[in-house]
């Protein structure tokens, strides 16, 4: 039983990180109708920067209690790369979606070399930095407290995003733009600024996820390309453009991954894509998506 709880805890942790990246993907797709492959690169950027931050912090002897908030702050600060990248994407708004997809693919290629240039080609990891807050254990169940923090942070961010989108004025403007861009524009919404803000917010979600995951996992050049595919699966399962879908999809993918790693290691990735295909066949718009076909 407790072994099962361990697996579940691992799955939920993975789901928390996945949710953040997928939420960024959803936000950008929902409002701008662009599938942003580069969200995986934002994730990797956060991770690499997180490594640098933690090594400096431990070098300077910063209290471990500042590490976690520090990682979140660095994730947010990295969001500054959002506006210039959005400026580049602006050139293909209104063009065929294959062009938009390709441009973000080009960004993935460019980013990969930027990481290689700054942080080198070898994977970088930190020695058991996830143990800085100790381990929570009862009986056979054990979980690093750090992982718990990450899960709580993801829940808080999910709640905050929900409140922001549903309750605030700016959130209403975002949703109106997502619903009908030209009508929103006609009613006086500054769509250009909204796009820039949404893209930046999406980038921040990605970089924060990356920064938070890095104490538990290595940062590598392939992580962007691997993770964006997983986030993609989340989004397809949950439904393109739906925040609730991102949450449920992330939980499904995270748990399936955790379970299959233990029980059927061969099926790890296979299981995820079987579900993706199943969802696309029976509910093409995803579990929570509105029909776009």
């Amino acid at each position, binding site marked *: 039983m407790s072994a099962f709880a361990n697996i579940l805890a691992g799955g939920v942790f993975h789901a928390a990180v996945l949710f953040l990246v997928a939420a960024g993907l959803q936000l950008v797709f929902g409002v701008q109708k662009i599938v942003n492959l580069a969200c995986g690169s934002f994730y990797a950027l956060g991770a690499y920067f997180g490594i640098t931050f933690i090594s400096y912090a431990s070098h300077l002897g910063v209290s471990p209690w500042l590490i976690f908030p520090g990682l979140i702050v660095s994730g947010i600060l990295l969001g500054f790369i959002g506006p210039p990248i959005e400026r580049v994407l602006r050139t*293909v708004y209104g063009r065929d979606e294959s*062009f938009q997809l*390709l441009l973000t*693919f080009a960004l993935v290629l*460019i980013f990969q070399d930027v990481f290689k240039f700054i942080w080198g080609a070898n994977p970088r990891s930190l020695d058991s930095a996830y143990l800085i807050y100790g381990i929570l254990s009862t009986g056979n169940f054990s979980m690093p407290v750090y992982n718990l923090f990450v899960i709580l942070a993801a829940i808080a961010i999910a709640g905050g995003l929900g409140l922001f989108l549903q309750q605030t004025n700016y959130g209403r403007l975002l949703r109106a733009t997502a619903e009908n861009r030209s009508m929103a524009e006609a009613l006086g919404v500054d769509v250009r600024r909204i796009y820039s803000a949404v893209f930046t917010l999406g980038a921040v979600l990605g970089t924060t996820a990356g920064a938070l995951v890095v104490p538990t996992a290595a940062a590598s050049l392939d992580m962007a390309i691997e993770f964006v595919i997983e986030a993609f699966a989340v989004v397809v399962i949950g439904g393109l453009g739906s925040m609730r879908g991102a949450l449920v999809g992330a939980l499904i993918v995270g748990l399936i991954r955790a379970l299959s790693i233990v029980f059927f290691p061969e099926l790890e990735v296979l299981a995820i894509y079987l579900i*993706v295909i199943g969802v696309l066949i029976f509910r093409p718009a995803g579990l929570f998506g509105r029909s776009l076909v």
Partner: protein
Amino acid sequence: MTINPAGVAALIGTAVLLVLPSVVPPYYVGLMIPFFGYAIALLGFNLLFGYTGLLSFGHAMFLGLGAYGAAVMSGVLGVKSFELVLLAVMLGSAVVALPIALLCARYVGIFFGMLTLAFGMLFYSFLFKFYHLTGGDSGMRVPRMNILGLTFDRYNKIEFLAGPFYYYCLALLIIAGLVMWRIVHSPFGLHLKTIRDNSRKAEYLGVHVHRFRLAAFVISAVFGAVGGAILAFRVGLADPELVYWTQSGQLVFMAVLGGFSNFFGPIIGALTYTLLQDQLQSLTEYWRSMLGIILALIVIGFPGGIAGLAFDLQRRLARRRQ
């Protein structure tokens, strides 16, 4: 008699490729083999993308089917005739593509792209994880096969690739090009273009949209398998990297680089990409970002690709002459 500029360009291109091995060093001749493989695969890919308007982001799957099919046929079953292997992978690819097409071709746009991506990744993880069947990440060996019943024992591998196999692949590319030219200029091809431009109107006119999309998908898969078999023959290995989604992205890249709205665009794209990648790789370890920047520039500034640029140039010259 009117002279078809496309036909003239194709003839000149063929002539250049025919004399190439006696002019340039063997290294570049060897480099042409992947070009032939990609060009054949892209001819098929562009039937789907350029002519039917369906962007597949998992097309590398069919390269992989060709490569692994060749590995199984020659390595496991001991078939030594490359023609037989080609026939087998074409058939196998069509058989695999049909059920996938039945599912994917119901969708268009981003959903089609995502579904093909998912199938591609499914195939990739199968190749990667089922180690005892596929060799996992180390792949499967593809032994040397004979072409047209001739073994060319006197040649070592490099001589063989730069000599007989080069002309063999060139012939394959010409055949594939002629077949595809027939396909896109037949009533079938016109149907596909109609579907691309306005699928609802096509349906009103009595076109079986779904059936035509299916056919285009299967044909493109068959071309992809031929390309994959050529690629695997050259390296002597079928490995899962050939199926990874970045490889599918690379196929799209080549098509856009050459210009997907032109029949010859994908071939030009395959050639340019192969040479460009080779040059950049020897120039800098950051060749990926160079390719990324080029891709971004094309997408932003020259959506017609190289073929589109050439077309514009030709039209501008013609106007000046008037």
